[in-house]
């Protein structure tokens, strides 16, 4: 069985399924146990799946500009569910309009996300960070 379990899903009323599938395949090939919840995933579904699978990280994607609204309170809910040490990542088209990426990143970091990735991020771009974060998290919790 794979060493790390990742929860993957597209949050909110977002139905962009293609990138989600690509991520699933790529992360599985990279050796992770991927629990893909697909599209139209609510905060509650992310949390419940993370509890049952004892997940190490939650990877949220959002591609329709409503990410900020959909993710509001997610970190608090995770803390409430006893999942405060589960890594929380997000990537995609997170906001509408041409905002500076640094501002977007700061906003989502402030909402409790450990990593925030802009559109066009390739799997190989964030894999080293993910692996390092997972190893650090496991080291700290043991």
């Amino acid at each position, binding site marked *: *069985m794979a060493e790390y*379990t990742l929860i993957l899903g597209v949050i909110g*009323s*977002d*139905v962009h399924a293609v990138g989600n599938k690509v991520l699933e395949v790529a992360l599985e090939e990279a050796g992770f*146990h991927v*629990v893909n*919840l697909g*599209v*139209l995933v609510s905060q509650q*579904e992310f949390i*419940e*799946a993370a*509890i*049952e*699978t*004892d*997940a190490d990280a939650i990877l949220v994607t959002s591609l*329709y*500009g409503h990410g900020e609204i959909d993710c509001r309170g997610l970190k608090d809910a995770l803390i409430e569910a006893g999942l405060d040490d589960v890594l929380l990542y997000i990537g995609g088209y997170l906001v509408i309009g041409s905002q500076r990426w640094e501002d977007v990143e700061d906003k989502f970091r402030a909402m409790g996300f450990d990593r925030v990735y802009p559109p066009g991020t390739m799997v190989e771009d964030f894999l080293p960070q993910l692996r390092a974060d997972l190893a650090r998290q496991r080291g700290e919790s043991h």
Partner: protein
Amino acid sequence: MAAVGLVPDLTAKAAEQAVLGAGARVVGCYSYELTHDDVRAIANANADMILLAGGTDGGNRRTLLGNARILAEHALEIPVVIAGNRCAAPEAEAVLSQSYETHLTENVMPEIGVLNVEPAREQIRRIFMETIVYARGFEKVERWVDRLIMPTPAAVLQAGMVWSEMAGDHIIVDLGGATTDVHSFCSGRPQSEGVVYRGLPEPYAKRTVEGDLGLRVSAQALTEHVGLDVLAEEANLTKEYLSRRLAEIHQKPAALSTTGEEIRLDRAMAVHACREALRRHAGWLEETYTPSGRLWLQRGKDLTDICTVVFTGGYFAHGEGKRQDMQGLFPSQPALELLPRDPDIVFDSGHILAAAGLFSERDRRGAARFLKRQLAGTST
């Protein structure tokens, strides 16, 4: 039985579904960590067995093991079926085996979104036949029966499985004095485009039990649900008469109805019990708007394409069931509740479903022929 899982909508729900599907009555469904009070409640409810689930395979271990330890402290002297995280289940069994008869079986939910209740169901049925019937003093029945003993709801479910092989997808509504059971035999997946399924997948053979809907022991609870005024008006009775009759039923739940008033009341209660039990069993649609247009989210089973609904129970066996009453339970137009549309109504007028289910354990083809002869002729 008590069903124990982790998340209410995931392994706890899967555990409950396994218990119901085995024909057992659920005295408690528990999520997250069991408390000492929970275990005492299980003991006080005289549970005959516990199904202990929790965690997907390779997932959460802590809850299954913690719950095993809490149970071990109490030693309730009932069998425990362990159907949780495969990677933690043997350890949970080791913890429990000091003080319980344990049975290890496959996880009811090995992965998120995958339901696997059949092995646990089978295990529960086997323990019922081999252990519970004796523990309950039922060994006396051995004077009359040589081998096959089954809980009635499990036998009805079994009859439905045999009937589905022959007649396809269908529903059985079992209206009783204390509960109303609904069994559906279909995949229930979304039927149309633009509908997205949410939640745990549903088993092909799904049983739900409504403990507050029935004609005798649950008559008071049913009346509270419907409203005394509504029920009195529908049955063309005064409220005073209705209150008095409900008290009589409470005193003597075995009494049959003989007068016109009594029969009218049974009829009104039967319609409400069946309607509400079917509504709770069926899935439903929720509207949602996305930037790519309107979508429907489906939760639970889509029963709209089901062509046959069989009604069973004493009320129907006594010939009280009116076809137009039961036809009126189903919508003729698309609705958000995914009930069958204008299905054929079949009455189990010989009250043979449970017997046929039991018989099928010995002779499946014989039971199929028996069902066909008894049910096929009565459909509209």
